[in-house]
C-alpha cells in the first residue's frame, strides 16, 4: 500500500518559472524513498508541496490515503517534517525546545519527558541539554532539529537534506538511527539529498530529479543494473613521461569515456610535468572492462609506463547520477558533455570520450 501517491504534479511561479514539471511517483509504506537531484532540481519545492506548505499548480497528491490538497491539516497531523533550513527557538535550551515541541504536538507531558531523555541520549545531545539553541554550532543545531521531530508520533517522515552541516560520524549515526527506526516501527521516510552515498546506504527506492522533472525511479541496485553496466578502471601513474598518454589510451576499444585528473591539460594533451613523484590518475569507463583492461595493460607495458596502482570498480550511483543529470545537474558544463571546463574540445576518438573529472570519490 502506498503512503505517497503523486500524479502529474507541477508547480509554476510567476514569470514562467516551472519549478516542478509533471512528476508522477508512488512510495510504499515502511520504505525509505530517496529523492535525489542537484541543487535547483525542484526537490525542495516538491517536498513543500508534499508537506502541504505550498499548493501545487496542478496534479494530485495523496499522503497516507488522504488528499493532501483538500485535507492539508489531516495530513500534517500524521507526518513529521525536517526542512532543509534550520528551525529552532533561539532562546530555549535544547531540553526545553524538545519539551515545548512535544507540547505543541499534543504529546502528553509524561511521554514527552521520557522521549526527551531517550532522544537526548540517542542523538548524543545530553551534554548540551542545558545550552540555548542560539549558542549551538550548526551541526549541533541540526542534530537537535532532526532529533526533535521524533518527539511526536508519525506515520511518514519527510527529511529534506537532514545531514547538511553534520560531520561524518554524526551523519552515519543519523542514517543508522533512521534505518533502525524504519525496521522497528515501520515508519515511512521521504528523504531528499544530493549525497549519493547516503541514498545508496539508506534508501529502498530512489527517484532522480533534474530541471523539475523525474528522470528515473527505481531501487539503487536496479538503477545500477540498468544504467551502470559500465565499470570504472582507475589507473594511477607515477613519475612518467606523461606527454603521450592521451594518444596511447585513445587506441583502447570498448571504453565510453576517459577522464584525466586536474593536472591534465586538454589543450596541450598532456599532464603537467612531475618531478616530485606525484600520482596522476586516469579514469576509464567501459562496458567491456575486461577487454579494455587487457588492452590498457598491454599498451602501457609496451610504452614502459610505470603503473602505481590499478583498480576496476562497478560504476557507482554517484556516477550514474552525474551521467543522468548531465554530469553536473545541468548547472554547468561537465565531463559528460562535449566541452570540458577549459572550453576545449573533448570529442570522441575511437569510441573513447575524454573529459576531466572534478568529483571526489564518494562522500
Amino acid at each position, binding site marked *: 500500500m502506498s503512503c505517497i501517491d503523486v500524479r502529474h504534479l507541477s508547480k509554476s511561479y510567476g514569470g514562467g518559472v516551472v519549478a516542478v514539471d509533471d512528476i508522477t511517483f508512488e512510495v510504499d509504506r515502511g520504505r525509505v524513498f530517496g529523492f535525489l537531484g542537484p541543487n535547483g532540481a525542484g526537490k525542495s519545492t516538491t517536498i513543500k508541496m508534499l508537506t*502541504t506548505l505550498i499548493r501545487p499548480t496542478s496534479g494530485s497528491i495523496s499522503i497516507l490515503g488522504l488528499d493532501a490538497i483538500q485535507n492539508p491539516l489531516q495530513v*500534517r*497531523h500524521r507526518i513529521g517534517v525536517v526542512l532543509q533550513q534550520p528551525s529552532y527557538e533561539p532562546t530555549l535550551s535544547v531540553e526545553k525546545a524538545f519539551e515545548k515541541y512535544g507540547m505543541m504536538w499534543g504529546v502528553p507531558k509524561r511521554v514527552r519527558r521520557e522521549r526527551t531523555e531517550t532522544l537526548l541520549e540517542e542523538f548524543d545531545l545530553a551534554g548540551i541539554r542545558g545550552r540555548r539553541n542560539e549558542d549551538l554550532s550548526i551541526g549541533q543545531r541540526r542534530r537537535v532539529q532532526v532529533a526533535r521531530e521524533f518527539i511526536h508520533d508519525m506515520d511518514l517522515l519527510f527529511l529534506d537534506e537532514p545531514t547538511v552541516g553534520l560531520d561524518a560520524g554524526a551523519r552515519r549515526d543519523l542514517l543508522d538511527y533512521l534505518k533502525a527506526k524504519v525496521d522497528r516501527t515501520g515508519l515511512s521516510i521521504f528523504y531528499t539529498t544530493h549525497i549519493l552515498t547516503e541514498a545508496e546506504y539508506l534508501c529502498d527506492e530512489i527517484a532522480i530529479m533534474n530541471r523539475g522533472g523525474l528522470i528515473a525511479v527505481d531501487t539503487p541496485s536496479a538503477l545500477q543494473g540498468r544504467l551502470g553496466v559500465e565499470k570504472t578502471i582507475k589507473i594511477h601513474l607515477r613519475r612518467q613521461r606523461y606527454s603521450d598518454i592521451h594518444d596511447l589510451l585513445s587506441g583502447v576499444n570498448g571504453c565510453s569515456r576517459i577522464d584525466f585528473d586536474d593536472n591534465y591539460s586538454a589543450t596541450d594533451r598532456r599532464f603537467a610535468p612531475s618531478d616530485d613523484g606525484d600520482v596522476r590518475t586516469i579514469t576509464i569507463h567501459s562496458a567491456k572492462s575486461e577487454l579494455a583492461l587487457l588492452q590498457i595493460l598491454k599498451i602501457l607495458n609496451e610504452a614502459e609506463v610505470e603503473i602505481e596502482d590499478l583498480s576496476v570498480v562497478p560504476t557507482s550511483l554517484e556516477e550514474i547520477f552525474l551521467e543522468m543529470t548531465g554530469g553536473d545537474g545541468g548547472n554547468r558544463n561537465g565531463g559528460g558533455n562535449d566541452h570540458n571546463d577549459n572550453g576545449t574540445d573533448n570529442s570522441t576518438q575511437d569510441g573513447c570520450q575524454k573529459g576531466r573529472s572534478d568529483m571526489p570519490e564518494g562522500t
Partner: protein
Amino acid sequence: MHPILRLVSRNVTISLNPGFLIWQVIFPLVYIFVAGFAYAPLIQGVELGPKDLDYPAFLASGMIGFSVMNSTLVSGIIIWNDRRHGMFEQIMSGPFTRGQYIISNICTIAIIGLISAAFILAVGIPIFFEDVELSPFTVPLIIFGAIAGSTLFGSLASIISTRLRSSEGFNVIINTVFLFFAFVSTAFYPAQNVQEPLRTAFYLNPLTYLVDVIRAGIFGNINMFVVVEIVVLAGIAGALFVAASRLLMRLNV
C-alpha cells in the same frame, strides 16, 4: 489542549525573557515614579471630566496604555523570529492552520497586555487611589481597552514583521513607529493644552484612543467623546487585524 492554546503556551514561553520583563515592567514603573513626580511641579493638575487629577495619577493611568502597546511588540518579534529561525515553516508543516497561528499571536499579546495592565494598575493604585472608580461598568472598559489595544498594536507589529526580513530594519521601524505613538499621545501629557497641529496629531494616533479609554475606565469618566473613542479604537483594531491576517495568510514559506 486546543492547538491555539498550545501555540499560546509556546509563544509565552519564548517571549518571557529577562530583557522583555525589564522593558515591560521596570521601564513603566521608572516612568511613573521618576517622571511622574519629577514633572508634577510643572504640570499642576489635569482636568478629566469633573475630576482634577494630579500628574502622577494621570501619568500612571497613561502608562497602562503605553504598557499594553509595548507588550504587543511581542507579536512582531514572535513572527519575525519565527520567519528568521525557520519556525514559521516548521509550525505550518505541523498540526496547525495559519488562522490558529494568527489567533494564537493575538491571544498571546492580549494575555501579556492584560497582565501588564493589571500589574501597572496594581502598582499605580496607591498613586491614583483617591480618584479611582472601578465598577462593573468601568472594569470591563479597561479590559476592552487592553484587548482592543493589544489587537491593534499587535496587528500593526505583525504587519511590519511580515514586510521586513532584516533585524536592523525591523528594529528601526518598530522603534520609530512606537516612539512616535508614545510621545505624540495622551499617555504622557494631556491633549487640552497642546498646540495645533500637534493636538490633531494626537488624535491621529491610536495610542491616544487606547489611553483615553483605559483612563476613562479607571477614573469612571465615561462620556460621549469616550464612546466615540471606543468605536474608533475597535474599528482601527478590527481593520488592522484583518490586514495583518491577510498578510500572514499570504506569507510565503
